């Protein structure tokens, strides 16, 4: 996991319109540390969470933008735009502009995440700053994904 970063890459209008930090004024390292603590507390790993998200992404893409029913009680849609995004931690590679809407029909809850979110969680344990458009609270996310305790 590499967490060296250029703060500039996290800001609005560099990689994404609103950036990755939202209204959170904590340093990135502190955001990561706090979320890491939450993930450990619920007995999970970032990679396990990301793998579950990746599964829903993969299935959702098959719907070409429409919701796909996924057993036992999920539905997911993936909106893809042309072009790519880079990792704000400067890791090489490119990430499709893909946004997944995942609905847990039993819980009547929904989460929205991007392909870049999956990478940031898997490789950097980064769930973005509070107030960010794509901020994911790890505990809430795990509940909707129905993963872990």
């Amino acid at each position, binding site marked *: 996991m590499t967490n060296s970063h250029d703060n500039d890459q996290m800001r609005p209008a560099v990689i994404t*319109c609103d950036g990755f930090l939202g209204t959170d004024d904590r340093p990135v390292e502190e955001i990561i540390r706090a979320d890491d603590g939450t993930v450990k507390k619920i007995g999970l790993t970032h990679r396990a969470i990301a793998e579950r998200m990746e599964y829903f992404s993969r299935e959702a893409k*098959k719907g070409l*933008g429409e919701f796909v029913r996924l057993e036992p009680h999920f539905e997911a849609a*993936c909106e*893809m735009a042309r*072009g790519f995004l880079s990792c704000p931690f400067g890791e*090489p590679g490119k990430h499709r502009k893909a946004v997944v809407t995942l609905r847990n029909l039993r819980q009547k809850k929904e989460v929205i995440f991007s392909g870049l979110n999956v990478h940031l969680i898997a490789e950097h344990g980064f769930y973005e700053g509070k107030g960010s458009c794509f901020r994911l609270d790890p505990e809430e996310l795990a509940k909707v994904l129905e993963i872990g305790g």
Partner: protein
Amino acid sequence: MENIEEGKGRKILINGSRQVYAAPGISLLQALKENDIFLSSACGGHGICGLCRVHVPEGADSAFTPAELAHLSPAEQQDNIRLACQVKLSRDLRISIPEKFFHIREYRAVVSSVRSLTGSIREVVLELVKPETINFKSGQYIQLRIPPYPGKRRMVYRAYSIASAPSDGRHVELEIGYARNGLATTFIFEHLKTGQVMSFNGPHGDFRLSDGGRDMVMIAGGSGLAPMKSMLCDMRDRNITRKVRLFFGARSPAEIFHADLMASLERTLPDFKFIPTVAAKNPEEKWKGEIGLVTGVLDRRLEDNFNGEAYLCGSPAMIEACLEILRRKKIPEERIFYDKFA
């Protein structure tokens, strides 16, 4: 933008004959742009798209950046192929680039209209100011410069297919789909106004109507209709009589746009059929067309060993799914065309 004169910057010798100068420290992509040479770049120079490949036999730092390592094959690295956005001008450079890049220009234009085609797609019409006309092939794209706007201090470039016909060189029409939290689309959907002055460079891209006479199948989703519209209008204007079937995927009947134009083209072109399909419809919506994903309709209606050409434009997922179907139906790769920037 100021050009750097000989002796005041780094020299870039291009194709052994033309030389330009630029300030040390800037990227090769930027240096060429400042000298009115525009390489293709869909990401605006962030090392993400991998399109700005250039042969740099002399003068570049030997170390490839992580972005280059992600995009360039070992053979390309061995051949001194670099991403122009990643090469910094620290010494004089010798480079070679295809001659086609010398024909790409920067244009200034006024937004003559902005309107919503659907809830998530906007049409932007640009009237050229300087130069006053553009020469392009239907299917090509431009790189639109998105200026800084409130709260967003950086300028970026984004690639958009041209939707208008080459016969009208005074205008460029774009059809732009909304991307959540997108830097460029937020500007286009929330800030762009009629009368605003914009700039772009182009035309770019090898996705274009071929010169052959084969039958054509076009598959488009959402704003991917743009280059198909350009090609069909081009065919109309040049009396090209090839057989065309256009499969267009939309979420619902309300998301189908340009239906009147397509009906008009069906009357004008000798053998053209527009086949829209909707993923779902409300019971109250009157819809007698295809229902289901565009890939399903394509799979059902296109014969195996189709002897024509396939043109694709839409989301990357749609393109990947279509490619799988076309390969299964044994359409040779060299007869399948789509934008690499997707």
